[in-house]
């Protein structure tokens, strides 16, 4: 029973706060390299939200995104011993994830995008608007706009989409994107700006970017 209480009490098991996030992550990587699965799963908990959403925006389908995310972490787990500690874990995991997505897109060009229903677990927009208050309407309209942007993003070539994903949503610098994608800095920038212009035109075409 004592052990049970210990497990149920976060104060005793919380990671030491003296460690910075980066140091903590490094420690988990080192432990994972020694075969500690729990340490690796802590890395998973830290990164799964970012990697899943990256995959979802790239692949536009929740099932594919789920598979790509799981494959990313499995690949990282299998090859964690090859990870060199002098580089950032984030660069490494983004590289695996972006390769995973781009490979999937090459093998299986865009599947039909997931619907609003799948994303929000809700029924058709019109049905929900019929009985909703204004707060609910706002939220639904926001979701609908988000869908339009996702669609516009989905219409970009995968390389440009990835550049925008890493820059805008993962908040990487151009230099970091260059390290993740292993392509020259100038190419990263030209892909990003080309994607941005493409997106601008698509959004203007659907009345969202005038």
């Amino acid at each position: 029973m004592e052990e049970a209480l210990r497990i149920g009490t976060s104060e005793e098991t919380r990671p030491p706060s003296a460690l910075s996030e980066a140091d903590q992550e490094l420690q988990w990587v080192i432990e994972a390299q020694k075969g500690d699965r729990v340490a690796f799963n802590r890395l998973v908990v830290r990164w799964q939200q970012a990697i899943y959403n990256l995959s979802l925006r790239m692949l536009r389908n929740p099932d594919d995104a789920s598979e790509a995310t799981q494959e990313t972490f499995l690949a990282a787990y299998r090859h964690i011993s090859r990870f060199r500690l002098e580089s950032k874990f984030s660069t490494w995991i983004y590289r695996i994830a972006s390769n995973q997505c781009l490979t999937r897109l090459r093998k299986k060009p865009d599947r039909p995008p997931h619907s609003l229903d799948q994303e929000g677990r809700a029924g058709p927009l019109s049905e929900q608007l019929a009985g909703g208050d204004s707060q609910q309407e706002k939220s639904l309209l926001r979701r609908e706009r988000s869908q339009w942007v996702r669609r516009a993003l989905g219409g970009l070539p995968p390389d440009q989409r990835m550049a925008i994903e890493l820059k805008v949503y993962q908040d990487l610098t151009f230099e970091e994107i260059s390290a993740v994608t292993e392509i020259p800095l100038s190419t990263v920038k030209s892909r990003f700006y080309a994607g941005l212009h493409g997106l601008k035109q698509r959004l203007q075409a659907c009345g969202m970017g005038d």
Partner: protein
Amino acid sequence: MDCRYSQDIAPYLMDDLPDAQRRKLSRHLQQCDICRREKAALEQTFAALGEVQDVPIPHHFFVARDDSRLGLLQAWRRLSALWKAGLAGALAMLLTVAGLSASGFQIEVDQGIVRAGFGPFPSLSPAVSEGQLRVLSDQVLVQVRDKLATRDEAMAGLIREVRLLDQRLQGLDQTQLRRLHAVAADLESQLSQAWRQDDQQALQEVEQWMAQTYADLRLDYLRRLSVVDANLEQFAQRDSALNQQVSFLGEALVYTLDQRQPEKISQ
């Protein structure tokens, strides 16, 4: 109509222009409608990009081992996030409080001597009478039932632990609290059901074994007992694998709870 400076607007907004070029473009923007429109359009594009919010993960992507697509993990993924959180902690506690395996129950066949039970057990020779064996089997059944009763008590303790977990998250809003209470109630009923099934199955297996042993007493009961013994061994091994799975899930739960303080949990 276009302006030769308009292609620099995006790098300008991304702070990706050399200082001199940036200053020049700032001045140019004051007098060029084309570039101002381009800047406004790009700003709207960035605003639109900002409307795409992250969606919650559909399930945890824990890595168990290379054969991570174990049935247990798949079943785990089908559960809702809160249920999982409750269950991971609960299972970790369950393993600690009660233990899942029938580890205490043993049957030994040693040079024709049969031993069965959870603790000190009687022994008898192959020449034993049916009456003696019946006495032995009754003793075993009593022990099995006692063991199961202990497990029931352990489960009640376990439910209390889940409620303690609930109390730890007092900072949550009413909706979240209601959901947690629902989790605890759900957990209680699901575990009770699972345990009842387990218990019934265990009892049935023991009774079936007894019945078969009586029927075949004079033929080959030793062989049959060996089979039961092997089955129990397998059962124990399976529990050991489960134990491993659950221990890291429990760890992950603790980590998740540590990372997600109450104010961050509210969605």
